[in-house]
């Protein structure tokens, strides 16, 4: 498992690279790799821009049925999200972004978990399984 800091644009690039390595290890198809890395990029950016910086944890996991997958967790100690439902609807905007980050990223992965509270930071965990 790799834990990476997210403090700059360079770090976002690094998260992408690590995600790619993990996806290749798992044998994800090219399209699935692209989706996972793009989702990781979106979420890493969110952590940087909205969360004031944080960390990413990338690991290869195995399902009950023996399928392998890539699990990535993002954590920050930022302001947190007050209305989770709103944040997950398309077109939600906060700050200067288009706001498609969360809902879009969710569509790109198989499992998506978002835990956030105002004042308690944000945690996002996503998993993409190989087929």
């Amino acid at each position, binding site marked *: 498992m790799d834990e990476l800091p997210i403090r700059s644009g360079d770090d976002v690039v690094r998260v992408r690279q690590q995600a790619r390595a993990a996806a290749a290890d798992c044998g994800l198809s090219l*399209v699935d790799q692209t989706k996972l890395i793009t989702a990781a990029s979106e979420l890493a950016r969110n952590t940087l821009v909205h969360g004031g910086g944080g960390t990413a944890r990338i690991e290869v996991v195995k399902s*009950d*049925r*023996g*399928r392998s997958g890539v699990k990535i967790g993002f954590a920050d100690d930022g302001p947190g999200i007050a209305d989770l439902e709103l944040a997950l609807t398309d077109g939600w905007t906060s700050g200067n972004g288009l706001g498609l980050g969360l809902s879009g990223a969710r569509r790109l992965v198989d499992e998506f978990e978002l835990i956030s509270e105002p004042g308690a930071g944000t945690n996002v965990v996503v998993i993409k399984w190989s*087929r």
Partner: protein
Amino acid sequence: MEAYGGQGRMPAYLRDHHDKVVGRWAELVVTGVRGRISPDEVRHELEDLYSLLLRVMTQQDEHAMGELRAALDELSRSRARNGFTPSETALGVFSVKDAVYELVADVTELTSEYLAFSRMVDDLGLRTFETYSAAREQIIADQSVSMLELSTPVVRLWDGIVAVPLVGTLDSARTQLVMEKLLETLVSTGSEQAVIDITGVPTVDTEVAQHLLKTVNAARLLGAHCTICGIRPQVAQTIVALGIEFGDIATKATLADALAYALTNAGLKVVPA
């Protein structure tokens, strides 16, 4: 999962009579496999399981139990691949109880421990059954994917024009595959026109329409233009009734119309010879 909760003498006893118990267990299992696996292989498998079992009984830690479970899962999957029924696999596991019972039947101080041991083995045997089901489901899922592959051809109608005749329901797995194949073909053939024929798609509801839209949008991002054809009268009525907007996506009634349209877009004209 029932844990073997005793610090009793069973584990030591089983270890002391290792060869006898494993030998007897192997005998019973070999009878059950009826030649499908060699006796040596069976013995080898059971040796592994037996030592893991003993470790669980003496150490009682999660790690040992985890390893035992993993070993049983692998056994179950391997048996499934070789055509064994789940009952056969489970019975193979259960037969260790017979082997142990034969050993301890006359040893009174172990009788009470035997019950706990028996329960643990029951759980383990049932687990192989569950793993078998899960493995079968995975096989079915894999076969569905293969079938999907076979039923999604992308054909070249003309220079720069490809067609995708869709037959069957259009769900998200199918759409994914169609998109991938279509886009790859557009890029590899350098085609800017695609015709998607939905004559063979039984129902077009909002979900299907969204899938079609995604495909058209993805092609557009590449710089290609999609025409949808084969919309049957009932389907047309459903689309309008549901209020589905195809927006600026070109739609034609027949494949012929769509081909003519694509040819025009490509700057081509068909003239009599």
